[in-house]
């Protein structure tokens, strides 16, 4: 088929989103969009054109057992496939993250990546995702484990040495205040009081001496940052 014909491309993209393609044609078309950005963009545009129809559908809370089942089907300890086109790497995505309603769904995926063995009810609530300069998430803050607490941990193990530490900062109106040292090992969390994280605040991680910044202000380079997305309970 001549996928480079713009009219045909539009038609196939729209039929793909509408759901009227026979199953086999759809799988074939899915293989195409994986390698053809023009068709992939046409699909995205049709999904967004028709999405307003879904606003008429009432939201329904899915039961927590759905996430248990997802967990059971994802091999423990596995990592998601390396992103070819920057789901994690896209700056535009991270810029949108702080305001878009999709933030927490992305957070779920990051959460799954960071803690493959720990999904289940109650569902994890993502407080913030801190991304490094290339846009890759490096730290994630989630609700818990106790009420009034937020748990901050490395999405992937951070390069560690004995001469440095990773310090977390909360930034309101440009003024940083120290929130504590983080643990660079993947899966090991630092606990922060939720009251210290007002929504809309910026969180940042800087590289500091082993005991943390001696001045109460960041002294080393800022490695990652992210916005507080929700008020932890």
């Amino acid at each position: 088929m001549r996928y480079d014909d713009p009219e045909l491309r539009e038609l196939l993209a729209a039929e793909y989103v509408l759901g009227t393609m026979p199953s086999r044609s759809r799988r074939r078309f899915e293989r195409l969009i994986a390698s053809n950005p023009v068709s992939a963009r046409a699909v995205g545009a049709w999904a967004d054109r028709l999405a307003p129809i879904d606003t008429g559908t009432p939201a329904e809370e899915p039961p927590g057992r759905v996430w248990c089942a997802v967990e059971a089907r994802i091999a423990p300890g596995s990592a998601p496939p390396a992103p070819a086109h920057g789901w994690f790497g896209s700056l535009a995505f991270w810029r949108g993250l702080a305001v878009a309603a999709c933030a927490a769904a992305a957070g779920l995926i990051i959460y799954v990546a960071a803690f493959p063995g720990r999904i289940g009810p109650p569902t994890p609530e993502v407080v913030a995702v801190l991304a490094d300069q290339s846009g890759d998430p490096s730290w994630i803050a989630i609700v818990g484990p106790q009420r009034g607490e937020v748990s901050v941990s490395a999405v992937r193990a951070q390069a560690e040495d004995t001469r440095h530490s990773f310090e977390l900062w909360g930034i309101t109106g440009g003024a940083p205040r120290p929130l504590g040292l983080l643990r660079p090992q993947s899966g090991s969390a630092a606990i922060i009081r939720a009251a210290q994280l007002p929504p809309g605040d910026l969180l940042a991680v800087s590289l500091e001496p082993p005991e943390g910044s001696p001045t109460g202000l960041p002294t080393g380079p800022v490695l990652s940052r992210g916005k507080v997305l929700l008020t932890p309970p």
Partner: protein
Amino acid sequence: MLYTQTAAKLFGVAVRIVGQREEAEEVLQESFVAVWQRAGDYDAARGSATGWLTTIVRHCAIDHLRRRAGRPESRSAPEDLLLKFAAGESTDRGAELSVLQRCLGELDEQPRRAVLLAYVYGFTREEIATGCAVPVGTIKSWIRRSIERLKRCLDG
């Protein structure tokens, strides 16, 4: 609670298509495993993350219906969903919807119904053809013409 809203919206869409909660749970589960496997395919330059997630959920729901080879009996008319929202508040979303509604309104009644039955309830071309008592080829050309007209209207 952003996360909760997204999951609930996606679950609502799954329930709408498969018609009952237990099966919609399976669909949501399938969908999030697919999201896990395909996270590398997503690119913000190719549309919103919500649109991407919704498309995955809708396709999983449609596959579920096709495997079951049968669909729920009671269905409200797909137009009702649009009307129900239109009566609501005028959010940004509402503005987008009213443009889409106007463009859908410019289609002839039967082709519009075909498009909505496909999007809202995941009807196949064959099911729509049976419902309208016309050949499948007619449905194909209705949908094709509707797509062209919608695109002109929405982008114009």
